[in-house]
């Protein structure tokens, strides 16, 4: 990279806010996915003006720009695929305003998801999107990826909780879209920007909705001896239109790995468990919990038990949220999928995943947001075994194809990024993609912002790209 650009960035931001030594750059080569890419420098802006200045310099030097929060993303969204400048938002990490009366907060993009909930906890409020990485992921990253989490089932994804954004456009202009009120006249630009994976603009300020904590919460653990009974229970809960706040499933393989690590109390000899949470007024919670228990029993749940206190509840949730991490104990590496299916197709889909696991001779753990049909099969592998890795990629592609065939989608919450962009033609026609490209160009005409993401780069429709040799065990938190 032009040393002159580094000097200009240092002049703009101060020398401490620019990293360009190889050993520093290595830390920013990867995120939570299996992807890799080397940036030429990392910059740490402190304000929207800084960001605008960086963008103008990048334009002058015709250099790509990639925004980055905590780097916990699972589809390579924060990776500098074509090199260039990584704009890391870790210094822009202030909660600017808590407007409790109106249930809003204004935050900088580098605020950690859970830190916002903690900052408003004393007011009885919280920020609803709760990705498993919420202890470290940032709200800017959540906005880019339109992140979900277990409680998405009841409360929606990030897009449902953002009312306004401040953007730095790729030409350096600073613009506000949306606002603090629940809607703003004109096209829903916030709706477009949330989930655009950093390809349309850099987000420098976010106005979010805060939610009131529910009066009562009940967390149930249902234990099963067969996978079919487990998935049929989920279907029945959906069919009966019971709406839990979360409905998570862990299969036997996954829960055994978790249990050894977290000691959450999952029976290690079972085929699968459902972790179901109901929230709301205590009257509603009791009625729903009773109905869910009945459904699980009808589907031959060996045991249905409720967490007796917060400690038990937190332990069960730790078992769920740290499951990915637990996999690191039994496998050097795993590849996490994020397909979505109509919820009624859950039983056949799990059977299909079992077949794929046998066909490719791979261990696949299943842990997912069963209630909204968002699957996270984890394919375990050892990155030193290249032949095995090729099978992993093929198996992942086959799972994806199944999701698409039954009317589903490629990603429920992890994003397309550089992991699935070449799979987009499985869902979208060339015309669909051409329109998306035009909309991208409307914001990002030179393609300088996060190049190589979301949309396919080549014309090889439906071909699965073999990712580079993975970096190190990617363990999303």
């Amino acid at each position: 990279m032009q040393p002159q650009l580094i000097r200009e960035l240092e002049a703009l931001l101060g020398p401490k806010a620019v990293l360009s030594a190889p050993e520093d750059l290595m830390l920013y080569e990867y995120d939570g996915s299996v992807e890799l890419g080397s940036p030429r420098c990392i910059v740490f802006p402190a304000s929207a003006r800084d960001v605008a200045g960086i963008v103008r310099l990048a334009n002058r030097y015709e250099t790509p720009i990639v925004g980055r929060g905590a780097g916990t993303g699972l589809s390579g969204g924060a990776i500098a695929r074509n090199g260039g400048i990584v704009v890391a938002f870790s210094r822009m990490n202030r909660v600017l305003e808590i407007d409790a009366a109106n249930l809003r907060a204004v935050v900088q993009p580098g605020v950690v998801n859970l830190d916002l909930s903690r900052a408003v906890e004393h007011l009885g409020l919280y920020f609803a999107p709760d990705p498993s990485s919420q202890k470290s992921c940032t709200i800017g990253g959540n906005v880019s990826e339109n992140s979900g989490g277990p409680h998405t089932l009841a409360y929606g994804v990030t897009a449902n909780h953002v009312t306004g954004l401040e953007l730095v456009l790729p030409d350096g202009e600073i613009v506000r879209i949306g606002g603090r009120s629940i809607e703003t006249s004109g096209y829903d630009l916030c709706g477009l920007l949330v989930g655009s994976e950093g390809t349309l603009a850099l987000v420098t300020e976010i106005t979010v909705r805060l939610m009131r904590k529910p009066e009562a919460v009940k967390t149930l653990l249902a234990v099963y001896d067969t996978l079919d009974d487990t998935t049929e229970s989920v279907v029945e809960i959906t069919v009966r239109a019971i709406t839990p706040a979360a409905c998570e499933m862990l299969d036997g393989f996954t829960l055994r790995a978790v249990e050894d690590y977290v000691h959450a109390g999952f029976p290690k000899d079972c085929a699968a468990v459902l972790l179901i949470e109901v929230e709301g007024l205590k009257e509603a919670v009791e009625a729903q919990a009773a109905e869910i228990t009945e459904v699980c029993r009808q589907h031959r749940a060996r045991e249905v038990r409720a967490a007796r206190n917060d400690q038990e509840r937190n332990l069960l949730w730790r078992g769920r949220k740290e499951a990915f991490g637990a996999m690191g104990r039994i496998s050097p590496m795993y590849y996490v999928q994020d397909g979505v299916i109509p919820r009624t197709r859950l039983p056949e889909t799990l059977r299909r995943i079992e077949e794929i696991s046998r066909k490719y001779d791979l261990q696949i753990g299943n842990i997912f947001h069963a209630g909204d049909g968002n699957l996270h099969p984890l394919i375990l592998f050892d990155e030193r075994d290249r032949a095995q890795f090729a099978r992993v990629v093929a198996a992942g592609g086959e799972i994806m194809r199944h999701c698409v065939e039954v009317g589903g989608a490629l990603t429920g919450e992890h994003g397309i990024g550089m992991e699935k962009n070449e799979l987009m033609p499985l869902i979208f026609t060339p015309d669909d993609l051409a329109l998306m490209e035009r909309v991208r160009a409307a914001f990002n005409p030179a393609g300088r912002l996060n190049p190589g993401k979301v949309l396919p780069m080549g014309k090889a429709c439906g071909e699965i790209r073999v990712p580079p040799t993975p970096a190190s065990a990617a363990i999303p938190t």
Partner: protein
Amino acid sequence: MSRPAQVSFTRLEEIAGGAHVITDAAEIAVREVCGKRPAVIVSPADAHQISEVLRFAVAEKLAVIPTGGCTKLGIGSPPARYDIALDLSRMNRVLAYDPHDLTLGVEPGVRIEDLLRTLAEKKQFLPLAVPFSDRATIGGIVAANSSSPLRHAYGAVRDFCLGMEFVTGEGTQAKSGGRVVKNVTGYDLHKLLIGSLGTLAVITRVNFRTFPMPQAQGTFVASFSSAEAAFDFCRAVSHSVLTLQMVEVANPGAAALIFSGEISARIEPRTWTVVLSAAGQPAVVDRHERELSRLAGAADAEEFLPLTDAEAYSVHAQIREFPKLMMERAPAAAIFRVSAVTGVMATLLGKLRVLAVQHDLDFVSLGRASGIFHVAFLPQKEISAPPQSLPRVIAEVFRTCGQPEMHASAMLEWCPTEIKTSADIVWGPPRPDFELMRRVKHSFDPQNVLAPGRFAGGI
């Protein structure tokens, strides 16, 4: 001016069939938009025909406005051109309904009333309690982003729409989103279409998630001596653990419209009223009644009344139809859709009321406590011509809402056509984000075929 004489109908007849190309004067008049009438009405059978009509329009430099039940054609700024009304009422099928998965895919011409009836058979519904419910179609409701009081619990169209199929201004069929309840695959282009008034694309399919009907429902009315007291009560409710379906605030003028018969006798005139609905298991509804009664008492409510089922049915219908009731009461009214945070609503409505009084206009407001209101300025006497002061009042409304501390956004949803002399009259003064909207428009409709001039900033 339109150029009726220049439109060749032969090609349109080839596309849609002779029976579906109409020039009947009465039908044309129904599809008038802000004083402009199309030369012809084409009723396509499917997305392919829409695509062909739009390609024809591009080639002939004609302007097209999609129509459904023709209930909201008055919304938006006056189109610069208007040659073809694209009537979508033939596309009225439910394409997919999986009650077990709680998902639904429909064509744009499906009437909301029919759709809700279909869903009710499976004890489900869509939270779209929107005006003109006997004629409004899904396409129009989505394109106008009609406001529903059920937004309080279920969100707006953007929150429960899963994806769409549509035809762009160039006649290209495209889609975004999907049919599953959770999906971040690709750009959410369909969100741009919600509220776009047909200026970006013609919607050919909308996928929704559906919702289970609650077991029981209760509706309650609390009345207050001032706006401040009413909004304080709303804030106490929103900060409580209660989970309401609907919280509506009516000023005295609005209360006179939404309450009729016996209920109106039970409610003190000149008060501000809050109408709330709770739903769920009977025990949940009972709990809401107890707690709301207590909160109302603590907020110095004049009255707190549970409504009978018949009363509730009537009040819900009146709230749903409120914009229509306003227009029927005074065709010369200016009706704004205003959004603001709850905390400033009392102040904002107070300022707007003063404005009305200064100009000898009646002031009526009804809206969601979460921050979306219809605010109407009405002539005090029954007159057909709009009051002379209306343009000044309109400008003043935008100025008031534009004050930074209000965090408000306004749009003039309905007013007499003669008042609409520019896009700014309807959408307010230009904003910095209008340029981004212009670029979005250009990506969907580069030839400016779809409803040119009807949107913000003259888009």
